[in-house]
């Protein structure tokens, strides 16, 4: 059944399909521009997983906070962070929000609702619960979302966090971007449960599994859970099943055979939404071309901005230590 | 006979006690088993009950005061009229029962 393109109860323009498409296209183009550079560094890319980040962020409001794993570029851009500042941070330039000291693995801009990435697998989960605890104690209506991969589901951190979040009814939405691989290990060889949202059940909190290649499905499921958390009904676990189009990182080789890759790449969330919008008459091919041009210009500006920013003085190795 | 009320040592890891509350004033008669004073150690509340009948004559450590184990907290006697010695060192020890909570 075709999912309605327009989500319920989301008034902001950011939640509308054309904007969702554009966001995903920016992420794809940004990562491609980064990958093309000889100085790209150690990167984890989100190609194929853009719908998870974009759909989730479409469900968040300004005062909410998002925490992520080391696969941070898509969520950061989806959250609305300035692409030039993000590129600068990734490339270690001082114009980055952390002056280039965190890089992609620890990308953070809390004043923009991106509490930050943490490069330790599962390492941000209890942190996110702590942020949610602070919101609860302060009586805020803001929600914390924490994005993590299937790779984090085997360690104790997730289970400890689910337990305490459930016990204390924390305003926390845990979102598992299940790209079905932990580096080279398929989910079935790493995790006993086939359906990762089942991990919520023992703790008595809601869990749901959606198609992570369908941005509207992600948005709508996330919106339900965020709304619930916002009114004090507690945490939830959302699993978005996605596909990773590249290898785990720029330092990891691809282990999947070419014919499997061909089938995976055919599930592109960007092509899917663009196709849906075209079939629904919302966008014509000229509109798509205009979007592509617009996105290319935005990414080019971001690259130029980052290129123009210097690397830090070596003395900054000793600043902000604490 | 005149007695000194003390908390005899050694008790593992307890060096000092602090008086929490006296359950009588000078002149008060205590029967066996009656609560005389509550003391605090670092870990617990100690209820000190009379192990023999006696009359409380003089409180040496008031509420909130500290005292080392084995040192006198109060003077008691078999009868109310016995004259108190000027030197309270070397008195017989009053029999007491402890309850630690």
């Amino acid at each position, binding site marked *: 059944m075709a999912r309605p393109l327009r989500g319920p109860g989301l008034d902001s323009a950011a939640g509308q399909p054309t904007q969702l498409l554009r966001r995903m296209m920016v992420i794809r183009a940004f990562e491609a521009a980064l990958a093309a550079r000889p100085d790209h560094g150690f990167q984890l890319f989100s190609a194929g997983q853009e719908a998870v980040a974009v759909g989730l962020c479409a469900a968040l409001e300004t005062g909410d906070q998002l925490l992520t794993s080391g696969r941070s570029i898509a969520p950061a851009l989806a959250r609305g962070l300035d692409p030039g500042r993000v590129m600068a941070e990734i490339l270690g330039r001082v114009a980055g929000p952390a002056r280039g000291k965190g890089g992609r693995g620890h990308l953070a801009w809390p004043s923009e609702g991106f509490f930050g990435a943490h490069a330790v697998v599962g390492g941000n989960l209890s942190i996110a619960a702590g942020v949610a605890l602070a919101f609860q104690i302060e009586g805020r209506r803001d929600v914390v979302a924490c994005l993590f991969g299937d790779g984090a589901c085997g360690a104790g*951190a997730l289970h400890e966090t689910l337990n305490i979040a459930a016990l204390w009814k924390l305003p926390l939405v845990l979102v598992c971007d299940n790209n079905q691989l932990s580096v080279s290990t398929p989910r079935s060889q790493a995790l006993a449960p086939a359906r990762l949202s089942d991990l919520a059940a023992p703790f008595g909190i809601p869990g749901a599994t959606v198609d992570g290649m369908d941005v509207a499905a992600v948005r709508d499921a996330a919106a339900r859970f965020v709304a619930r958390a916002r009114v004090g009904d507690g945490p939830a676990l959302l699993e978005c099943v996605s596909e990773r189009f590249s290898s785990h990182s720029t330092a990891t080789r691809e282990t999947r055979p070419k014919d499997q890759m061909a089938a995976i790449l055919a599930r592109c969330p960007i092509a899917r939404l663009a196709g849906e919008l075209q079939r629904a008459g919302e966008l014509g091919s000229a509109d798509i071309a205009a979007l592509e041009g617009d996105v290319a210009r935005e990414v080019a500006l971001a690259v130029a901005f980052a290129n123009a920013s210097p690397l830090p003085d070596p003395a900054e190795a000793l600043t902000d230590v604490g | 006979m005149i007695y000194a009320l003390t908390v005899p040592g050694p008790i593992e890891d307890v060096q000092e006690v602090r008086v929490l509350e006296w359950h009588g004033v000078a002149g008060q008669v205590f029967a066996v088993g009656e609560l005389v004073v509550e003391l605090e150690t670092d870990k617990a509340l100690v209820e000190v009950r009379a192990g023999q009948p006696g009359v409380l004559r003089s409180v040496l450590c008031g509420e909130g005061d500290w005292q080392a184990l084995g040192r006198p907290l109060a003077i008691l006697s078999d009868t109310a009229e016995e004259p108190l010695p000027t030197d309270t060192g070397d008195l017989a020890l009053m029999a007491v029962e402890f309850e630690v909570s």
Partner: protein
Amino acid sequence: MSAEPVAGTMKLFFREAIARALREEMQADARVILLGQDVGAFGGSYKEFARLQAQFGPARVRDTPVAEAAMVGLGVGAAAAGLRPLVSITYMDFLMLGLDPLVNYAAKARFKTGGQITVPLVVKTTAGARGQGVAHSQCLEAWMMGVPGLAVVAPSTPADAYGLLKAALRHDGPVLYVDHKRLFPTAGEVPLAETVLPLGRAATRRQGRDVTVVSHSFMTRVALEAAERLATEAISCEVIDLRSLAPLDLDTVASSAARTGALLTLEEGQLTCGIGAEIAFQVREQAGPIRTARVGAAPAPVSSNPVLEHAALPDAERVAAAVRRLLDAPPAERP
């Protein structure tokens, strides 16, 4: 409120000094919260949190399940989001379970976010051997004092438990506060006036001429006991209580050692990569070669067996013997 204790003190049990510090800070600042196992109605394993939940309510004083990684992570996240939590880890042996959020996030947050996020978190834990066996006896401060971005403090008296805990709760970064099982039975004078001690400042507990004995936590009491014995042998010990392991007050230690010409370090933890090894090297860098010795635990787990526990740990007599050997040895050669 003053930085140095003023005239007028009251005698408190060690646990009461802790409760007082927390009560004052929780009254003054609504952001201070307490998380830990059995800290609520139970009031803490040593009653060091007695009556805090009754006074400040269950939102600010929360019992957690046994999950040290999550407990520390919760504290880290809450601090990063603007609260000032204290997380109580009952046994230092189990701090290890919480080292990922403490070391990989809390100690790195300010740096990795370029100053956007700070983590004003206090992790309070109790170290030391007291008959509870190999996994409930360890002193692991040496592991923690070399983590950039993490402060480490260790009181040896109720007054310092009070003053250092207040300081820790006011510090704008993560602090590991380590007390000791065998300090809880002790009582001591605590200033009546509200007092915050500075981090990074050692205290000279006893002045002396012949040797500098440096220690912290419960071993400071052992050092003082040894100093009393040695005084009857006409050996005059200067005893320095570090109070703060990171930042370390090297100046106080180095200037004392330069004056006495002999340095003995004393810790209950392991000597390999221990606090003494670090201090000895830093003193040498600052003050030149000085004859030095170190005393610590035997290189073995510490059994609950009273004979074996006693055999494994420093006591006053062993410290005194080490001082005698140190002073009998020839002075260090100057280059």
